[in-house]
């Protein structure tokens, strides 16, 4: 009888328990880098928490909350160089902040304002992908195309557990594997796709078990352990740059917030489990680690948080200071060389708008 063999069953961890048991030191990052990573976590956390407030205040539209996903996003991005490309889903909407994108840009995106649309080449961050998993082949194509040009660029695509059910995920992963593309398939397994639990999404014991089907390594990490994510991604980047092709990383966490501001999870979620997860959320875990290691103390933490809060305050102010968008933009940007009808349509509309 055939067997189902797991890829890497045990979750990789670097950060230990609250009492410090199990903490592991990482080769590589020094104090400054560890603190930079903390800054990124705090920036993302602050972005997320402020955005929920802004939404309630009617200052941004529907918003996909990423509370407790910060460790996956920051841990993975810190393993990359700035030339490496990031392909985010809506869940990683603010990941550009880690590449210097102004908060106002991301806030504008959620405000449905055209200044929220950026040039991917400015940050090596692709546009936010709204339809599930359809950006996975883009990332495969970019990684492969860069390799064909002799560049050493690596790409990473972020997607969720639900996304692994889509044909696009499958086709993109296979393309990347077949072309030995330097791609990291980063699966944020928060165990929910809106109201659908992981058990209704797959029968696989672990999502990383999918990797073998593409002939690539499948790695499992604790997605709330930013250092484990960082370490696993570093290894994947190394393999990719060495020409060894893609890696599938499954980062296990738990969605401890609503799917988005429009969602009410009380109808389907286990609230006790949510409480547990909120108690061990990823920013606090890392903060504990840094404090235990003597790298972080109250004052510094406070100033990092203040910087992030200030950045957000400036960001929303800048976003709100944008003049309202010109309706002529309806007709812009779809084509380099548009059909002439778009011009006459705009002339007519202008006349009617008066």
């Amino acid at each position, binding site marked *: 009888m055939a067997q189902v063999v797991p890829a890497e069953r045990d979750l990789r961890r670097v950060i230990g328990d609250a009492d410090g048991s199990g903490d592991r030191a990482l080769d590589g990052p020094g104090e400054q880098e560890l603190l930079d990573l903390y800054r990124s976590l705090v920036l993302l956390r602050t972005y997320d928490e402020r955005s929920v407030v802004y939404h309630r205040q009617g200052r941004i*539209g*529907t918003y996909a909350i990423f509370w407790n996903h910060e460790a996956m996003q920051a841990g993975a991005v810190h393993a990359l160089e700035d030339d490496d490309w990031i392909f985010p889903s*809506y869940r990683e909407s603010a990941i550009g902040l880690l590449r210097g994108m102004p908060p106002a840009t991301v806030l504008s*995106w*959620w*405000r*449905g*304002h*055209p200044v*929220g*649309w950026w040039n991917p080449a400015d940050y090596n961050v692709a546009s936010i992908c*709204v*339809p*599930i998993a359809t950006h996975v082949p883009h990332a495969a194509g970019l990684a492969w195309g860069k390799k064909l040009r002799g560049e050493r660029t690596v790409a990473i695509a972020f997607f969720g557990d*639900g*996304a692994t*059910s*889509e*044909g*696009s995920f499958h086709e993109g992963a296979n393309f990347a594997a077949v072309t030995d593309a330097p791609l990291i398939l980063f699966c944020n397994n928060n165990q929910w*796709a*809106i*109201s*659908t639990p992981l058990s*209704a*999404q*797959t029968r696989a014991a672990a999502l990383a078990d999918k990797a073998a089907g593409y002939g690539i390594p499948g790695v499992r990490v604790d997605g709330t352990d930013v250092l484990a994510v960082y370490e696993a991604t570093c290894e994947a980047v190394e393999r990719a740059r060495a020409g060894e092709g893609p890696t599938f990383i499954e980062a296990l966490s738990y969605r401890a917030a609503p799917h988005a501001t*429009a*969602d009410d999870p009380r*109808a*389907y979620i286990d609230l006790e489990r949510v409480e547990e997860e909120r108690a061990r959320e990823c920013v606090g875990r890392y903060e504990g680690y840094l404090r235990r290691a003597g790298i972080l103390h109250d004052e510094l933490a406070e100033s990092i948080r203040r910087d992030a809060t200030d950045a957000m305050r400036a960001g929303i102010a800048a976003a709100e200071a944008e003049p*309202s*968008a*010109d*309706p002529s*933009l*309806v*007709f812009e940007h*779809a084509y380099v060389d548009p*059909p002439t*009808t*778009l011009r006459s*349509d705009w002339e007519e*509309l202008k006349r*009617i*708008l008066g």
Partner: protein
Amino acid sequence: MAELSIVEAVNDALHVELARDDSVMVMGEDVGRAGGVFRATAGLRDRFGPNRCFDTPLAEAGILGSAVGLCMAGWRPVCEMQYDAFSYPCLDQLITHVGRYRWRTGGNMEFPLVVRMPYGGGVRAPELHDDSPETYYVHTPGVKVAIPSTPADAKGILAAAIRDPDPVVVLEPKLHYRTLKGEVPEGEHVVPLGRARLAREGEDLTLVAYGSMVPVCEAAAEELDASVEVLDIRSLKPLDEDALLGSAAKTGRVAIVQEAPRVCGFAAELAAILAEKAILDLQAPVLRVTGYDVPYPYWQIEDAYMPSVARVVDAGRKLLDF
């Protein structure tokens, strides 16, 4: 009769039809535990069990493809696509199989499935939550397409689609899901496919529309200083050609309003029918008021994209002045 919103009417239809015929089942992303992201399927899982209201994996081609197999096993699946633009992954199954399988069996097997989804813009949503994809569906042989505009029709047309022996795609105007309320007959209520609805009678000008554009036409009719007829097509395929030609013959002036991009939209089909069959009745050009041939815009400027009352009034005046 109860006063229901459109999404409540959809929910009502599903409750009635699942109770009536135990081969009807609902499937889709988040239709079960959550009752659908718009709550169109609320209460079904509790009432009929998780097999009759099934939370599928996140895979639209898988949903529609399995629905084909479920039909072969005797089920009548009602598939929800969570949003218009997220239905595109299922187009392959729709075109290659849903529309052809009965034909391929020499008429021996039936595929009485329904694909339903919220469609259209104006809801201040992020990208790809706003499309009007009816052309992709109506151009596809072997499937029927309907788009109701009122709560009563939302219920009655969905019921007709579920009972229909052929595959039917039903697009529901999400802009009015909760805002448009109306009387809806209780219990079984079926509005046959293939019949247009005269939303408003008039003598001078016909405004033709379906779905979310019907209220726009009704408002424009109010504003126009003439006797304006509003024809709600509601069933795109089969189409009530007689109603269209009849109204054109009566008024001689026709504007067709659609939210989708213009090129090859359904308004083009209606205009082409008029150009062939009503040419002697027409006293003016056939005008189309449509979305533009560009991606649906970010929401701060979506109002400029959507066919507005002002644009319809402008077209109406042009026709009346012709």
